[in-house]
């Protein structure tokens, strides 16, 4: 966005020179003309004594000596916090009688200058998705594990165990497949074309991976301008569709983009959508939406969502779940069959 608007700014027509004599002449004329009498002036006159009394009370209250309080120096923000609510669907059970389960969990990520702490699988569980799925699961004997349909693993149904992961490497890791880290997205180019080149050093020429990186970067601590540059880059990628204003189920709204997602072992005909708050550039939700009906699920239905509940600087230290070992084993609900 920035580039095009900057170019356009260069094409601005010449600004007319101000004729100061005329300007002052006009001002004198304007000031000599009568102003509209505001309707509220009568109201003010009528209630002026009351307003004066009210003002005196306010001043007296403000002027009262308040109990002395210790002066605390303002601490600078220490953490960038990303609180994400995830859910996703998976088809499990016997191929002849499958049903859908929903993985639901929260990830609380805290990034500081020299460390990163993530609480994963917080408040997590795996449960049948719909009432019909619950009936099928019950009919199957309410198994605690169920095989993936079309996959090689099984799924543990029930609550997830939270885990805490801590690293002392600073910065934002661009992807699970790359060790490249950035202190802030503000260190990256603001020009979408240059930004794309940087992302392609990590994602290669894979448009979808580049889009996923750009979406991931928008979660990190950075300026409005960089987020706008990233959104602009997303819009310019081949195959990306601008969705315009998107109204979400929870009453929030934003603007969004969509890109076709590669098929997984269970779903094909899926597009990934990102919806952001246009005023802040902050992501609101990223979701995978079916473009064709499959597994009993209708088109336009989300099969996974990441809703970003918090993206903020904070001085509050990370809140860790009790009785959970830092860097202990993560008990995934996906297990060997």
């Amino acid at each position, binding site marked *: 966005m920035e580039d095009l608007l900057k170019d356009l700014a260069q094409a601005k027509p010449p600004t007319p020179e101000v*004729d100061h004599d005329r300007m002052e002449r006009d001002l004198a004329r304007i000031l000599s*003309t009568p*102003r509209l009498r505001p309707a509220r002036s009568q109201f003010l006159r009528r209630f002026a004594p009351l307003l004066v009394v009210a003002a005196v009370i306010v001043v007296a209250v403000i002027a009262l000596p308040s109990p002395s309080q210790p002066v605390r120096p303002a601490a600078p923000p220490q953490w960038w916090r990303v609180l994400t609510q995830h859910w996703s669907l998976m088809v499990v059970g016997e191929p002849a009688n499958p049903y859908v389960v929903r993985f639901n969990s929260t990830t609380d990520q805290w990034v500081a200058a020299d460390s990163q702490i993530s609480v994963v699988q917080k408040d997590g569980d795996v449960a049948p998705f719909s009432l019909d799925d619950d009936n099928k699961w019950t009919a199957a004997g309410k198994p605690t594990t169920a095989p993936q349909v079309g996959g090689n693993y099984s799924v543990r149904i029930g609550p997830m165990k939270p885990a805490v992961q801590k690293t002392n490497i600073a910065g934002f890791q661009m992807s699970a497949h790359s060790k490249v880290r950035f202190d802030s997205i503000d260190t990256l180019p603001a020009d979408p074309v240059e930004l794309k080149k940087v992302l392609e050093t990590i994602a290669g020429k894979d448009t979808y991976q580049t889009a996923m990186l750009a979406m991931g970067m928008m979660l990190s601590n950075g300026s409005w301008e960089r987020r706008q540059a990233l959104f602009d880059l997303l819009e310019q990628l081949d195959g990306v569709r601008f969705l315009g204003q998107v109204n979400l189920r929870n009453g929030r709204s934003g603007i969004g983009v969509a890109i076709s997602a590669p098929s997984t072992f269970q779903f094909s005909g899926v597009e990934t959508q990102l919806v952001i708050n246009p005023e802040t550039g902050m992501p609101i939700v990223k979701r995978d939406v079916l473009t064709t009906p499959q597994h009993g699920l209708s088109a336009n239905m989300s099969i996974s969502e990441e809703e970003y509940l918090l993206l903020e600087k904070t001085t509050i230290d990370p809140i860790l779940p009790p009785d959970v070992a830092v860097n202990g084993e993560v008990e995934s609900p996906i297990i060997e069959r």
Partner: protein
Amino acid sequence: MEDFSAVYRECYPRVLAYAASHAGAQRAEDITSETFTIAWRKLDQMPSNALPWLLGITRNLVRTARRQVWHDELADVPATDDFAQVVELRAALASLSEADQEVLTLVAWHGLTPVEAAQVLGCTTATFFVRLHRARRRLRAALSTPNFDRARESWKTS
């Protein structure tokens, strides 16, 4: 009255520039004068950040006297390498709808923030961003049309 005079002197050049870019230099001073006359009459409604409100008044005035004139002023652009790009951009801009031109120029030419520009247009900031995204996309598309590509090539070879 002193506050109004201060706002007047501070905002006059930007109101004049807005009026000139939308109604032509010749009418700009009259429209600016009329803008501040209306503002004076409605002084009680003037917000602390007066510029978007003033431009909203100017906008209503220029809509009745709109005459796009930036082609007439190209003579003021030095004939450098940038000249071709300026011609191209203004022509692409002129090919868009008035609504798209307005959204783009409020930000790019008049230096308003999206929040201020939304106030001028009387819409929410979210709506403004959607309009800005769409207008930008259409401007980019206009710049990519074969006509502009041919023009660009001719400028390179001339």
